[in-house]
């Protein structure tokens, strides 16, 4: 593969990554790695995936010069419009890829977990298109918070299974999906939703998502005749960020910013800022930056952006931030809502709360970019799913 990934052998990104799973899952992970390596580079796979991404997904997504927002920031800001991808976020890039891979591996069923519901929806879509059964594990708290997405998944015919363990959110849903997978690896593919989990998942997800960055590169060169000065992306597991960053990792002059969920404050229990509050640890099959308590137990993260509510950072983004190739930052909930308001007003776009973290970061740090700077914000998703939360924040209800 000619991807500019930073992983070494055995799924290592520096000291992060690896494959820390029960023996029951080892064999299927090895098979998956082999299948990915043998199918992905083939002309047939590329063609099939290409058609799905284009005709079903709506790729390429535009790179939109946000004139009004740029005026506010004081430099040129482009938005990479993943919100226009079918389903409303970047998640489908990965779901289509993995579903196609699962079909090649003759799996009959997809399981996965979801937090905001965006990944769950994309998995349900991809499953239906490729004729695979879909079951989605979702924390009971998240099911309440993202009720409309639960309805959507069910309408798509997916089974949504409530996860009651732990604090009933994404972390617990991932754990339960891994448990379920252990019982059915022969028939079932775990469609991992972000660049997390045991090797080869972080690599697979990053590869499928890096279509974002490849397009950014072509599009910005077409529009500006050169590479951007900076790319900003939000994230937790890191899939949209890595997807956008990958083709630029070797381009040292392009600054890369990763924005995580600050929550309401950086106090112990009110944040999802794992790069600030976490340390290296092992969770869900990989070494990553993880939020933990003094007992070496994983801490529950907290942020209003359900899709960033995960206490760990994927291996690759953990490594890129540790080595300072990527600069990490965060945005607090109230800044995020303000960024939503600004984007609505300036460009008529309602961003996902996750995406608004990247926007809030740009708003907060606008003085770091001079007038001629070219910024690309990976606009990872639309805010329809967050409408109630956002309207509630501004108008009460």
């Amino acid at each position, binding site marked *: 593969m000619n991807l500019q990934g930073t992983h070494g052998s055995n799924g290592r990104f520096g000291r992060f990554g*690896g494959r820390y799973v029960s023996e029951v899952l080892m*064999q299927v992970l090895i098979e998956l790695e082999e299948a990915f390596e043998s199918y992905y580079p083939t002309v047939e796979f590329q063609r099939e995936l290409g058609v799905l991404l284009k005709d079903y997904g709506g790729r390429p997504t535009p790179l939109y010069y946000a004139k009004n927002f740029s005026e506010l920031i004081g430099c040129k800001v482009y938005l990479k419009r993943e919100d226009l991808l079918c389903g409303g976020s970047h998640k489908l890039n990965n779901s289509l890829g993995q579903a196609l891979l699962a079909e090649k591996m003759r799996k009959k069923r997809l399981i996965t977990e979801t937090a905001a519901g965006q990944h769950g929806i994309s998995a349900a879509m991809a499953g239906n298109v490729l004729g695979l059964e879909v079951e989605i594990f979702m924390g009971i708290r998240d099911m309440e918070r993202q009720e409309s997405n639960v309805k959507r998944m069910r309408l798509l015919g997916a089974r949504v299974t409530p996860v009651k363990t732990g604090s009933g959110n994404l972390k617990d849903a991932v754990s339960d999906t891994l448990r379920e997978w252990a019982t059915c690896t022969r028939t079932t593919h775990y469609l991992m939703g972000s660049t997390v989990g045991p090797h080869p998942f972080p690599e697979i997800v990053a590869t499928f998502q890096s279509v974002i960055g490849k397009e950014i590169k072509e599009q910005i060169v077409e529009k500006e005749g050169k590479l951007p000065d900076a790319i900003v992306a939000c994230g937790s597991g890191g899939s949209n960020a890595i997807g956008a960053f990958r083709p630029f990792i070797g381009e040292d002059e392009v600054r890369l910013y990763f924005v995580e969920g600050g929550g309401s404050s950086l106090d112990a229990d009110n944040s999802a800022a794992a790069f600030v509050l976490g340390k290296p640890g092992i969770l869900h099959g990989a070494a990553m930056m993880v939020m933990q308590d003094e007992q070496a137990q994983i801490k529950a993260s907290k942020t209003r952006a359900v899709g960033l509510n995960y206490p760990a950072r994927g291996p690759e983004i953990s490594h890129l931030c540790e080595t300072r190739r990527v600069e990490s930052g965060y945005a607090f909930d109230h800044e995020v809502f303000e960024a939503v308001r600004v984007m609505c007003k300036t460009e008529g776009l309602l961003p996902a709360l996750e995406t608004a973290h990247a926007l809030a970061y740009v708003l907060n740090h606008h003085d770091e970019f001079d007038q001629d700077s070219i910024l690309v914000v990976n606009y990872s998703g639309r805010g329809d799913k967050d409408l109630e939360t956002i309207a509630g924040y501004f108008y009460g209800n």
Partner: protein
Amino acid sequence: MEIDQKFLELKEKGEGAYMPHIYYGDPNEEFSLELVKTLVSNGADLIEFGIPFSDPIADGTTFIEACERALKTRMTPIQRIEGVRKLRRIGVEVPIVLTTYYNIPYTIGLQIFAKQVKEAGVQGLIIPDLPVEEATEFLEATKEFDLKMIFLVAPTTDDARLRKIVEIASGFLYVINMEGVTGTRESVVQSTLDLIKRVRDCTDLPLMAGFGISRKEHALAMLSAGVDGIITGSAITEIYSKNLHSPEMSLPDIAKFAGEMKQACVEGYNR
């Protein structure tokens, strides 16, 4: 007593080994101490001593809940390891195999962890989310402490990996009884029987079968199939978790259960 010695002793006696698995501190430390004493005096040949983790991905519902309860006591992993010392002090002499998820030693520091564990009186370690491929660093950091590293084998493990595993495993091999996570199950499936045969063909290490064993018949079937002993986990926790306000009231039932399982290990071994 060392693990190898225990298996030798049992072989001489013509008995299968019985190892119950508990999570230390569920629902409190006092009970766990009583529980282990009861298990040992009713036939447990080894004890699998669990240090709870917030995200026990290889465990089923019963043990997830056990971990959650045990974590409510807010003991640190080091304090729990001290529990082994307490057991030794009250006269528990059987080999103790400590189980926990890799984040615990990783965060504490591999060497510090191994040292603490060793000094507290542990003979072996099971880290279910540490497959052989990832174990090199851990083995390296801990080798001076002479702790047996127990690895798992599953019905899905192919022969190539089986050979890798037996190459570095010590103490015994943990034969995963079934595809899935811990928890009680209804029957023993063909793939498990095949696995036992395959493992038997490539190693002399003792084989202990676990995951989903909750009835005498399971134990008998497993031993007949050729393992050297069995592990029960959730089955015991299920008994006392029905009465969490006074779990000690369940000790007689647990004693009875342990006795039966040990009995099955004896019978099964001699078929």
